[in-house]
């Protein structure tokens, strides 16, 4: 953030875009339910981040918290742009995002999704089939044409790999 605030922002900004654009897009989809607006929200978030980098105070929170706070406001403003007057749904959205715990859990889920994407294809596929397609392990074995024991072993290694990926992202101690 200091690099961005000082104007030496190329690599630093790109690193943040690479790290957060995926989860921010997921956040935009959850809050706005529209791909175009979610994309615009992500762009708006990084523009605001770039302009407010000088205000970031590490004593008040992590970069992650800072970015998601900006994104939340960007999403709220996006909903306001959809109507010339705030609608009841906007107020309910604001009530939702003003509650830290549900929002924090939403962010964590998005970041875990992002972390899952960094796993090897075999590991990621095993967990995605279980969680996204709601397949049992025997069904996964049938789908992938591999033994059930292999599915169980892959799942175990996938979970360990995910744990490590979460640690790298500061999502798990």
């Amino acid at each position: 953030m200091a690099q961005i605030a000082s104007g030496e922002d190329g690599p630093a900004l790109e690193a943040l875009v690479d790290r957060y654009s995926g989860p921010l897009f997921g956040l935009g989809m959850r809050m706005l339910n529209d791909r175009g607006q979610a994309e615009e929200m992500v762009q708006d978030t990084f523009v605001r981040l770039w302009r407010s980098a000088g205000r970031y105070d590490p004593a008040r929170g992590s970069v992650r918290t800072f970015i998601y706070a900006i994104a939340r406001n960007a999403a709220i403003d996006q909903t306001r742009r959809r109507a010339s007057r705030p609608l009841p749904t906007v107020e309910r959205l604001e009530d939702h995002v003003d509650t830290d715990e549900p929002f924090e859990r939403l962010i964590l889920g998005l970041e875990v999704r992002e972390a899952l994407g960094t796993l090897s294809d075999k590991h990621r596929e095993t967990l995605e089939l279980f969680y996204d397609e709601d397949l049992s392990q025997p069904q996964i074995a049938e789908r992938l044409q591999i033994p059930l024991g292999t599915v169980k072993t892959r799942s175990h290694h996938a979970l360990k790999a995910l744990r490590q990926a979460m640690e790298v992202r500061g999502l798990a101690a």
Partner: protein
Amino acid sequence: MQPEQDSHADLTAFLIGALDDRESAAFANHLRTCASCRAEAAALGPAVDGLELMPERQDPPPDLRSRVLAAVADAATEDERAAAPDRPSEAQPRAIARRRWQLPRLAFAGLAGAAALVAAFLIGSNVGDEGVTTPERGRVELAANLQTPSGGGDEGRLVVREFESGRRISFESDALPILPKGEFYELWFVAAGDSPSSPNRISAGTFHPNQKGISDVILHAAVDPSLFPMVEITSEPDATDPGVSGPVVAELDAGDLLQN
């Protein structure tokens, strides 16, 4: 005793809920007597919890990264162009983000009733192209400072850029008071002849300052500023009234307009 590798594979199945009731009960018994599995379960717990929170997968468009970086570059250019030439100390990239708004807030202390602001801009001229205009970067039509009617200092910076699809209005201020919950500011483009009984104005959108009193918004409107040459920001205490429901307080710093 089960081989450790098999135990750990079953452990994961147990943790994610992949075992049936009989298998799950049997493994729970095993867990009570196996310190190794208990330690592994504790280590993997956060990953399992995280997976339970995962939302539906949403893949961003492949060009999102490049578009984000282009948007930031665009903002940098916009800020650089909007920096006033007679303020050499602020004539640097992102001057708007760094500017310290000096107007004392005493200007608002005397307001009775709702804290209402209006910035009136005279948009009488278009900004000539000072550089290449592309569909992605737009053309700066107006860059101006907001003022209170007393003619005090800066209250915020407004930039209007024209794109193929319409106008993008960016507004930044650290001087607008934070409004009570349910109230908000609204930015209007106003034409000649506008009156309460016969309004001739278009809303560009609504916003409110954040908890630190910073307003940093981007609004979009298809309105042509040359046809609606005044810009007002009103404070709206009445969410049910589609028209202006707050009083007018501020006015334009005409000397800050960019001329052809």
